[in-house]
């Protein structure tokens, strides 16, 4: 059985979506930790969910990245535990230095909530092994600060190391992200940060289930031979 832990900050608001998604997919209710906690339960997957932690009042994710719990998250990451940061979670991971680059205000300056297309840029990773390489999937986004940016050297390194997990496809880049980057791995490949919300596309009532395989991969639930 895979154990999932979800980190909650004041202002997290897609934590409930994530709890529901993990419970529905794995049949196991995830453990919850509060931002002031200094230790984490034994976990195979740690998720930092979406929302507006601390109101996003400094920079998105900047205050959350300095919360006591993030020391424990960093330590777990160093031990190879899988970490997933979605939306505000991605912002928090970049602010914490666990992922390279930064997320700036969307190029059109407004909040955007819509469905986009993602192509899978690297499927040699548990998070993405449920998808085919270059497979195009549907996924919703909902953010104000999702415009991914990294300086030239960092970007080259990310690309050379095949750290890009997902790119916006079919001209659906909703925020101006450089190289259409929608999600990236860390160098070791155990941390994934992404702006789109796979947890909002996991059951027929959501209008599709393209997000499901990401969690099934992260929780080692995929069949030995992917279909």
């Amino acid at each position, binding site marked *: 059985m895979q154990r999932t832990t979800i980190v909650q900050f*004041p*202002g997290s*608001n*897609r934590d*409930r*979506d994530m709890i*529901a*998604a993990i419970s529905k997919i794995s049949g196991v209710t995830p453990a919850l930790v*509060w931002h002031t906690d200094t230790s984490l339960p034994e976990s195979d997957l740690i998720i930092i969910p979406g*929302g*507006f932690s*601390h*109101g*996003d*009042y400094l920079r998105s994710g900047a205050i959350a990245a300095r919360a006591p719990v993030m020391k424990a998250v960093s330590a777990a990451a160093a031990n190879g535990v899988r970490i997933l940061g979605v939306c505000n979670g991605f912002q928090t991971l970049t602010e914490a230095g666990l992922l390279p680059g930064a997320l700036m205000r969307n*190029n*059109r300056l*407004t*909040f*955007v*909530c*819509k469905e986009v297309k993602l192509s899978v840029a690297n499927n040699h990773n548990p998070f993405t092994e449920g998808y085919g390489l270059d497979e195009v999937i549907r996924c*919703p986004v*909902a953010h*104000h600060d999702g415009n991914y940016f990294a300086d030239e050297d960092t970007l080259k390194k990310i690309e050379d190391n095949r750290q890009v997990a997902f790119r916006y496809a079919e001209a659906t880049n909703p925020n*101006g992200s450089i190289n259409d980057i929608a999600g990236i791995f860390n160098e070791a490949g155990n941390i994934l940060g992404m702006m789109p*919300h796979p*947890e*909002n596309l996991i059951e027929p*009532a*959501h209008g599709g289930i393209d997000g499901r395989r990401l969690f099934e991969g992260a929780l080692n639930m995929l069949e030995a031979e992917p279909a």
Partner: protein
Amino acid sequence: MTVNNTVPITPELIASHGINDEEYAHILELTGREPTFTELGIWSAMWNEHCSYKSSKKWLKTLPTEGPRVVYGPGENAGVVDIGDDDVVVFKMESHNHPSFIEPYQGAATGVGGILRDVFTMGARPIAAMNALRFGEPDHPKTRHLVSGVVSGVGGYGNSFGVPTVGGEVNFHPSYNGNILVNAFAAGLAKRDGIYISKAEGVGLPVVYLGAKTGRDGVGGATMASAEFDDSIDEKRPTVQVGDPFTEKCLLEACLELMASGAVIAIQDMGAAGLTCSAVEMGARGDLGIRLNLDDVPVREESMSAYEMMLSESQERMLMVLRPEKESEAKQIFNKWGLDFAIVGETTDDLRFSIHHQGEEVANLPIKELGDEAPEYDRPWVEPGTHSPQEPHLFPPPHNYNTALLKLIGSPDLSSRRWVWEQYDTLIQGNSLQLPGGDAGVVRVEGHPTKALAFSSDVTPRYVEADPFEGGKQAVAECYRNLIATGAEPLAATDNLNFGNPEKPEIMGQLVAAIRGIGEACQALSMPIVSGNVSLYNETNGEAIQPTPTIGGVGLIDEQDRMTRIGSAEMGDAVFLIGTEASHLARSIYQREILGEESGPAPQVDLLMEKARGDFVLAAIRSDYASSCHDVSDGGLAVALAEMCMASGKGMNCTIDITYPHAALFGEDQARYVMTVKQEWADMFAANCEGAGVSFARIGAVGGDNLIINDLIDISVEEVKTVHESWFPDFMGETALAEAAE
């Protein structure tokens, strides 16, 4: 430092508080002496139009508010309606018109915040929001700025708080040039036995202040909302409150945690007239006095006077009466969420509202009389004028029906609102089944395998202006139809009545007739009004808005699998019109956009027919006949068919028996739906319609890439869609921006 609470009570001061001579005489009598400055502020806050409903109360009382499912009707923070399985839906709509015109971002944001607070104050977790927005004409120099500010304010608050915005309206009309409307709706879900109300019980219990600190923002806001605008409005910007959705989200979680702990006896959010209204409400409801010590109120500014503290409309604040033994537990919860928690007073048995500040009693007023004795006016009103019927042949037909349809579908009022709702989080919570763009927003009921709730917000102000009575009926009827079209049983509604200055008999006449129409329709369609809000004095320099009684309706879908959507038709499905050929072109979008006129009578609403056809359509959807459904409203049948084609991405080929083609295609007769039915069931369905005595016409089939109607219309759905989608981004300059970004 001592703050001065003594200000001489002059006639000018009294007048500037919106209190007239007669009202002041009554205040003197009830106070038993000349009021202090703080007391004058309290009286003014309780007796202004916004809080006391003094002009509308007499008429609001005539609305049907009861029904088998109604748990709490008007009078609480929000209405409460039973949806079975011990679940209740809690909802209300409220205006934030004046603040949004002065400061669009914060005005709209705090409007959303206020309505969310009304819902979760009652113990319900908000699950859906809608916004009915009305702006001036597109070409007015302020309109873009207001649209942009209001939309980002609505999104900025709702998105951060974490509630999906699933519906709403955006309309444009010159009558809103100087007075836009921002009507915010919120609905929440609770267990029937988990509902909290404002009535306090028990003497000597702690009155607790929770949430954000008190500042000077919004002092006098409710009084501002009760006055007309003139050219000096910029001076009123400091009366607009500033929203903090982050604090509100924390307040939601803290309140729900606190309620679950059993610590709460009574709770009231601090909305209009802040501490004053909330404390008076809790005490008066429970037949208790309240004693407050303002030295204990958490403040974020120095040297605030008692007057300012009592009238501040700082946001994200609550007042509670707590069980004393749970005090430390409650404090812990609020500390966890980083919110202020302070005991600021206690309940008493003397029925007095007693305010202490810096060792001095600055107010001592009879608490019941503050609310109960508020003036109630039977303002003079005149019956609105009538218009004689106008036959279709009086309206010129278009030169080209294709062009006419494209013009309508790409007009400011009928074009796609995607530009707006893509700035709202429509998906958060993972329960949204139908997003904006269809007939109603639909959200499933978490924890229940098949139930879902549908939400729609409706009013057609140009009809209300032509005929307030029929227009009032139509607002309810259209809302009812939109709910039905998704397969939802309409349960109840909230009303947000936006009108001009009620001291003018013709405006008062609009209000009276519209309420009468709303009441009749709610009665006939079994949609009791369970909450609402009245916004009067929507005038600038003496020019009133179009009367706009917005109706927010809630419906229950029992089987999600049978829910219908506007765009869920399959190739080959038969297309049915439920209802008869249209003939009413007066006050239609066709008349306005193609003929450049707004005149004549509003369409009549036959409520018995509405109910019969609604019942029939609902039964058809619930027995799985319908593959898709859409109500026929603005723009008539041709627009309804085009909207269905755009949503499904499929064409339709229709052949319709027609007397006057332009009236049949663009007329806005009421009580009509379009339904698609699987071809193999079409004959049986037609027989059902006949059997039920429901007027219908089998008008065509889904197929191809074009919308074809007789030899009148033949356009590709792609082209219709392009025109439909482009108006808003073009208007807001977004297309140019997008091209520049690429």
